[in-house]
């Protein structure tokens, strides 16, 4: 019911649900209203973007050695490719929790507070 698809069957014009895209767009306070065409284009552009991000990361990363698209490859893309730099904050590099704790210790000793508290992720095994 959420799929406001423009066609029936497998050849949907866009595969992301328009209603969900609309919710995200409307969460921006400055936006008052959205034309139907603009909603469609945004959904379509997001679809293209996801394909681009995934294929770029796969191509330029090491995950393909194991036939996988990994978080690390995505994170590298955000960090290294200018086009995707706006994603850098939400795709942070991972460090070992132990390393992070040591960093915190050191910063406490130096009398400074770490800024990146919320961005660190623990390393996980990606082979599922």
């Amino acid at each position, binding site marked *: 019911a959420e799929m406001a698809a423009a066609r029936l069957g497998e050849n949907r014009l866009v595969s992301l649900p328009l209603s969900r895209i609309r919710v995200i767009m409307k969460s921006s306070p400055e*936006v008052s209203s959205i034309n139907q065409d*603009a909603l469609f284009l945004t959904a379509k552009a997001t679809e293209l973007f*996801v394909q*681009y991000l995934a294929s770029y990361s796969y191509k330029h990363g090491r995950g393909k050695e194991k036939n996988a698209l990994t978080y690390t490859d995505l994170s590298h893309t955000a960090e290294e490719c200018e086009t995707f730099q706006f994603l850098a904050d939400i795709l942070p590099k991972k460090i070992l929790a132990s390393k992070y704790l040591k960093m915190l210790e050191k910063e406490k000793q130096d009398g400074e507070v770490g800024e990146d508290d919320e961005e660190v992720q623990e390393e996980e095994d*990606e082979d599922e």
Partner: protein
Amino acid sequence: LPDGVNISKEARSAISRAASVFVLYATSCANNFAMKGKRKTLNAGDVLSAMEEMEFQRFMVPLKESLEVYRREQKGKKEARKDKDKKADSEEQDKSQEEDNEEEDERMEEEEPNDEEEVDN
């Protein structure tokens, strides 16, 4: 991606977040163009301009092509609705494209599946 490539839960979740951020960034950018044009409603041109601004020129051609198909399909639906529902005037259609009224929008979204059923092929 090539067939059979595995995508971990972590990577999936990352892509999902990235998509949301993309929508926000694109919307904000498109909104700037709308404001420049002194308009309150985001339109297709604003989104396309945003893509250029964000350096996704590679999307331009596929987007424009999809948009054309979408518009044709919407027009087809509108004509089908006209027969059944006299108030599908083109001005009304423009108004219903704006989101002043959440209810109207929901109704539009609900109607679409019905339309598919009712159109005679």
